């Protein structure tokens, strides 16, 4: 560059740099405007029910004058983000709809406000709620009347299927010819595998389709939340029912290994290609784009799927997680709503919970896309007819089983994620080996936590 150009250019650069620096530092120095009026921040995951809750919350604002602000985070970073927040005693959330498995940590670390006194004062009885949800979302220690959350979102793993494909005469005929029984939603996993094999690679409407979609996600909790649906039904248990934390022979029993093998077989034979790290969203994508005949996913998504223009309405059907040789359970999902102990607005937050617990609000919650855990809503005579998936939901909530809710839950979960994904997707070792290593992992975690662990 010539002399004068250099001078101008450098002056210009210098000026621009200083200007931007000034802007940056000014923006830094300026405080965000102080919140006007009363406000509550509610933290949850970013999914359909959250949008429904926003709608519902408008009623609360009308009634109480308290404005609701929301912090929604995608599921894949939900645990990371909010465990981080709770850990650091952050002030972002006043109310949090935390995952059911966090309850142990939240109670022990005093992240949540204990709600027993509040419930007593406001005459909110836990007996009014579905027992499985109280156990799963509120209690810590389990099976003791210590409540840390109000059951907010009842959820479990269920299945959707392409009812329109199942009702095609030619498909029905072929299936009957091949397997000697009618094509219908499966009642057992053996049946499910048959149906999945039947649809795998079939040409429907000019496109190749696949049998089933199951969870395989590695990063957060996906594959664990998928595999437990099979494991429970093959005889897997977390520990000795008579001796807590005795895992040897229960986590890694031969039956459990068979269950794990079954999940892998299902994954290898009858799923769409490329689903090596797939959880809720990929399942919705796969089902909505017509790739799979049956999809494993959370009930929370079924209202949205039913409304979908491509695969909803008459085209979609629902069935409960099929039974296995040794049991019939389904993985519990769902969350309870809690007040964060470090919140500056506990009074208002409790007011929200009181409002949310009202039967009429719970009824509306169910109607607009949430899942109420209140008995008066789900036991109402009209409930099974209120939505096509309602009967399956009722049935599922009666057979739910949950993962560990210990304070060390994150470590337990991540260990299981690793061992299961290593075996199912990465072909490492045998199912028995994976479960044996898992027992070792979990023993170590519990020892760290100070529990008495019996290893034989």
């Amino acid at each position: 560059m010539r002399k004068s150009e250099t001078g101008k250019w450098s002056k210009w650069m210098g000026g621009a740099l200083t200007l931007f620096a000034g802007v940056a530092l000014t923006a830094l120095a300026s405080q965000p405007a102080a919140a006007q009026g009363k406000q509550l921040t509610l933290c949850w995951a970013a999914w359909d029910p959250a949008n429904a809750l926003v709608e519902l919350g408008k009623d609360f604002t009308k009634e109480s004058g308290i404005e609701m602000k929301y912090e929604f985070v995608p599921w894949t970073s939900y645990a990371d983000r909010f465990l981080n927040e709770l850990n650091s005693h952050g002030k972002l959330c006043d109310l949090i709809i935390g995952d059911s498995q966090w309850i142990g940590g939240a109670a022990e670390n005093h992240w949540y406000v204990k709600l027993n006194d509040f419930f007593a004062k406001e005459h909110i009885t836990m007996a009014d709620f579905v027992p499985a949800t109280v156990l799963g979302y509120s209690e810590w220690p389990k099976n003791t009347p210590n409540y840390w959350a109000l059951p907010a979102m009842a959820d479990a793993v269920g299945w959707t299927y392409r009812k329109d494909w199942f009702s095609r005469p030619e498909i029905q005929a072929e299936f009957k010819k091949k397997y000697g029984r009618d094509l219908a939603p499966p009642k057992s996993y053996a049946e499910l595998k048959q149906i999945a094999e039947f649809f795998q690679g079939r040409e429907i409407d000019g496109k190749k389709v696949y049998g089933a979609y199951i969870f395989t996600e590695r990063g957060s909790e996906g594959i664990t939340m998928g595999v437990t649906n099979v494991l429970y039904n093959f005889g897997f248990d977390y520990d000795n029912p008579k001796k807590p934390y005795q895992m040897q022979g229960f986590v890694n029993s031969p039956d459990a290994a068979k269950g794990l093998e079954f999940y892998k077989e299902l994954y290898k034979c009858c799923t769409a290609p490329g689903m090596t790290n797939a959880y809720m969203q990929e399942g919705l994508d796969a089902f909505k784009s017509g790739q799979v005949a049956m999809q494993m996913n959370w009930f929370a998504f079924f209202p949205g799927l039913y409304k979908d223009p491509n695969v909803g309405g008459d085209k979609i059907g629902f069935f409960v997680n099929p039974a296995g040789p040794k049991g019939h359970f389904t993985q519990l999902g769902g969350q309870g709503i809690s007040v964060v102990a470090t919140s500056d607005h506990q009074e208002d937050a409790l007011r929200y919970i009181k409002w949310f617990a009202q039967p009429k609000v719970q009824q509306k919650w169910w109607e607009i896309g949430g899942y109420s855990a209140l008995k008066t809503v789900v036991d109402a005579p009209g409930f099974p007819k209120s939505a096509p998936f309602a009967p399956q939901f009722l049935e599922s909530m009666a057979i739910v089983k949950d993962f560990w809710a210990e304070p060390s839950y994150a470590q337990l979960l991540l260990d299981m994620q690793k061992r299961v994904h290593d075996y199912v997707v990465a072909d490492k070792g045998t199912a028995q080996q994976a479960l044996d290593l898992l027992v070792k992992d979990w023993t170590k975690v519990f020892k760290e936590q100070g529990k008495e662990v019996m290893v034989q």
Partner: protein
Amino acid sequence: MSSQEVSPTLSAGETRQPGRMAMTAVNFTGATIERIAVQTPVQTRLRNAKYTRGLSDRGIAWLFITPTIALLLAINIFPLIWMIRLSFTSLNLSMSYLPLRFVGLENYSDILTDDDVWIRLQTTARFVICSVALQVVIGFGLALLINRQFRTHSFWTTIILLPMMLSPAVVGNFWTLLFQPQIGPFNYVIGLFTGIPPSSFSMTGEVALAPWTIVLVDSWMWAPYVMLICLAGLRSIPDYIYEAAEVDRASSWRQFWSITLPMVMPFLMLAVLFRAIENFKMFDMVNLLTSGGPGSTTELVSITLKRAAFEKWQTGYSSALAIILFVTVFGAANIYVKVLNRVKQR
């Protein structure tokens, strides 16, 4: 020349051609400088210059260096020391109600005797070696070709540089779309050229392919980096050496081996050093591309560290792992730089 202090150890490839220090490299602004330059003899009158009004030289030197060193001490060294202390404890942030125990070297022994950790280190080492090797081959090759200086070469060079300027996290994320067997173009393009059906393999999902996938994406991003450095090295070789070789009737192959390669070697080694350090630290691109999967086949040691520290909240354990990593990389870089200096001396 005047008091030029010892050049720092890493100024490799500094080709100080005679006469370089002349005015051509310097930009003049303002008439003042010209006036000074023209009027005052340029002979060193250092003695006078040392005693100036205001702060003495030493004062200024320390004043200028201190903020930087202080900031680095606060953000790098103090936390490092804290981390060393933490590594001897059992701190777990998600179970902070448990009493904090001093466990001595237990965390370290846990890590060093854990097979899984060694496997992660191996995975990381394999990633570093394969990706750097591939980048060196591609980068050097491209540099040789571009050095032929065909027309429009500078335009195409800029195009090749673009992947390097992206955020590695964003790159890892959008490559998951590109590698999708059903909806991504990569498999289809491979299918077009080789006839393999696109849905039959998954670059990020198969145990055999995933390690190569991360090498591939990393090389796509950083081969241009190596290319630039090699290009500088190639351009620093004076023409007369080649001309002399021509006169001696050395074949092109011979010229390549005896002239080009040795003279570019310091540059190549520098590129390898920087790329190796960066890839050892690699976290964002691989985490977003494969989440360390399938299973743990692409779980680099940074990903393990992140999970231990920020998902399992095992602060004590992860501090020990971090210290071990730091010592490893620091030691390795130290050795490498010494070798690099020796190569530079030749």
